């Protein structure tokens, strides 16, 4: 495996090997660019993944302390676990479910479409669907998304059958087994889905796309990638002119290391990315890197979520087969008559018994909870994914009162639901309940949001440098050789799971970086 010297200042350094960082690394390597990929976690594989929820969580999840504030229920239920993100090679693409939906054109123009909304900080992207479309197409091909590129849809499981029947009964027209980055038949050297039902625990069959066993080995094969695992980046340094020139990290032994860089790309997911920029504050940049707008860490979005579970007279075994086995997209289009702007989708969800107990209704006790558990076998579930609105005060800050294992300030995640989020969630809960009642649910329950799986917006793209952190290529307005390469770039969240868009942006960013390097403008 290639190794680059620590003082080699010609390399591109990428922080984080997940959807954004792993893809960017491969795309750059394919174009002949030398990359050092720094990943805080260890390297696992399909062979080492564990079909057991808590042990798998301990193996893959980001468990460093974080703190919370704000009126969101997460601050009460999971005060030190605001988000569900991974720390491992492949990042959260090890845990993700594979749902891969494109944004609609108006979702890039939310300020124009929704108008000004009190209390929200909604803005149009500096990018249009037209511009992103070719990259969406490449991402779908790369990830092997079903119902694109002539790849058949996945067969629906029992959980999907219930969703489909209920959706049809309440009059919904668009319900199918989704666009999933999961092989419905063998493709790209990976087998088809075995319907294991452990998509959230790392796919042991490799049917589900993850940068761990697609992008990263492909990049390694070029001889252009050096992946350093257990490398926890603590700060980014800059030269006298203000350009990024090195990344400082703690290695597996806790020793500080410094890697020089020509370009630095940050893809640590939307909590760690702004944290890193804020922790890199210097005399020249006292508010943190790329923060002249004051927007670093702000506009944190996490989608308006919630789940509806229901139990029936007859068995379902919803834990069998793909976790997100189908979607309903009728509620996606913006229709303010419903009492909120933006839209939402439903996706099936299933949890194993241990997670079901932990997440069904955190803090609950007594007979209603027990009765739901008693009916586990005949339960069906769906998850709500809706657009939440950017707000300036929803933000990641450094909590200097609490330190992590390296003595660094932990990130505090502050979130308050906007009235629009609350109205949307209420609408979605009602519809979800109606779907299950329509097919004979004996009882339904509204499950509150899980720790955030979709974390977005904290270094957002903007046309003007005063409104956001980076431009439409993810290049920061303030520091031309510093890039944001993950979901932090999102100007708005859309009613779509984010990863396909993150991957598309990474492909596009790689093209831009390679061009700029070739033109010697970086």
């Amino acid at each position, binding site marked *: 495996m290639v190794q680059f010297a620590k003082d080699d200042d010609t390399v591109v350094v990428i922080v984080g090997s997940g959807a954004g960082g792993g893809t960017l690394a491969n795309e750059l390597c394919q174009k002949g660019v030398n990359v050092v990929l720094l990943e805080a976690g260890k390297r696992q594989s399909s062979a080492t993944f564990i*079909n*057991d*929820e*808590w042990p798998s969580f301990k193996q893959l999840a980001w468990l460093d302390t974080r703190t919370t504030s704000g009126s969101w229920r997460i601050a009460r239920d999971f005060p030190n676990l605001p988000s569900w993100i991974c720390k491992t090679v492949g990042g959260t693409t090890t845990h993700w479910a594979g749902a891969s939906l494109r944004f609609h054109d108006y979702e890039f123009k939310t300020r124009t479409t929704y108008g000004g909304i009190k209390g929200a900080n909604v803005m149009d992207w500096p990018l249009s669907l037209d511009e992103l479309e070719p990259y969406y197409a490449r991402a779908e091909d790369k990830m092997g998304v079903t119902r694109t590129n002539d790849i*058949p*849809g*996945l*067969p*629906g*499981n*029992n959980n*999907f*059958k*219930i969703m*489909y*029947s209920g959706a049809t009964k309440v009059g919904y027209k668009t*319900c*199918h*087994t989704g666009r999933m980055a999961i092989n*419905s*038949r063998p493709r790209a050297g990976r087998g*088809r*889905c*075995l*319907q*294991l*039902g*452990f998509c959230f625990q790392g796919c*042991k*069959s490799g049917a589900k796309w993850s940068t761990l066993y697609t992008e990263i080995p492909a990049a390694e094969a070029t001889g252009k990638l050096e992946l350093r695992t257990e490398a926890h980046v603590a700060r980014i340094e800059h030269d006298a002119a203000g350009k990024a020139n090195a990344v400082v990290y703690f290695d597996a032994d806790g020793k500080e290391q410094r890697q020089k860089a020509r370009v630095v790309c940050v893809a640590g997911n939307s909590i760690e990315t702004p944290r890193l920029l804020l922790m890199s504050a210097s005399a020249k940049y006292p508010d943190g890197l790329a923060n002249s707008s004051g927007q670093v860490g702000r506009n944190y979005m996490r989608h308006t979520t919630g789940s509806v579970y229901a139990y029936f007279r*007859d*068995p*379902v*075994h919803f*834990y*069998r*087969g793909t976790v997100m086995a*189908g979607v309903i997209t009728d509620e996606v289009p913006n229709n303010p008559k419903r009492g909120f702007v933006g839209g939402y989708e439903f996706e099936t969800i299933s949890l*194993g*018994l*241990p997670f*079901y*107990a*932990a997440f069904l209704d955190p803090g609950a*006790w*007594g*007979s209603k*909870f*027990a*009765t739901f*558990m*008693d009916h*586990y*076998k005949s339960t069906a579930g769906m998850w709500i994914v809706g657009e939440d609105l950017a707000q300036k005060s929803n933000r990641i800050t450094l909590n200097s009162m609490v330190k992590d294992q390296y003595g660094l300030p932990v990130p505090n995640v502050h979130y308050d639901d906007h009235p629009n989020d609350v109205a949307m969630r209420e609408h979605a809960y009602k519809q979800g309940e109606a779907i299950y009642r329509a*097919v004979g649910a004996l009882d339904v329950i509204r499950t509150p949001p899980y720790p955030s799986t979709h974390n977005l917006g904290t270094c957002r793209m903007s046309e003007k440098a005063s409104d956001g952190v980076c431009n439409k290529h993810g290049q920061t307005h303030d520091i031309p050789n510093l890039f944001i390469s993950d979901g932090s770039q999102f100007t708005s969240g859309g009613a779509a799971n984010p990863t396909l868009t993150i991957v598309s942006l990474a492909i596009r960013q790689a093209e831009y970086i390679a061009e700029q390097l070739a033109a010697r403008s970086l």
Partner: protein
Amino acid sequence: MKNMTEINAAGLENRDRRHFLKSSALLTGVLTATSVLGLLAPSLSWALPLQHLDQADADAVLALAKTLYPHKDLPDAVYALVVKELDVYAGDAEGRNFVTKGVAALNAKASGHFSKVSRAGQRRAVATLIDDGFVQKVRSTCVTGLYNNDMAFAHFGYEGEAFSKGGYVHRGFNDLSWLPAPPSEASPALKS
């Protein structure tokens, strides 16, 4: 079944009497022969010797777990796993004291031994003490302990680990037959 063997390590049939003599308290029970666990367990009777909790406290913790999560027919053998965790927690003076004080508070609210008062009395006592540290400790131990073991998997009908069995692709991922099958545009047939 891993957990069942744990509890039955001192199963009534072949128990090691000296081990029992050293124990601080003992929880015992008998599984219903026709229950899922009764069919799977190596023996119907089970016993769990404890090392730190005294009998009254152990009984109270068991009753508290059953009050917090009152399942229709979940055998005590599963609730006993929660008591076992609390027993480990009570391994030092601080932990022991925490449990004793917690049980005393429950007894006071229940006006009697918590494990012996009526179900309604138990529910009332727990409702008023729900934010108490000890009650919350037992509650969170229940959430991770009660539903995360082989006995619970068997009882509630969760099949657990699936990879070694080839997943569910040929084991019923789509065997639900009480609703019509969705059309193939929505749910295509399995591809080989």
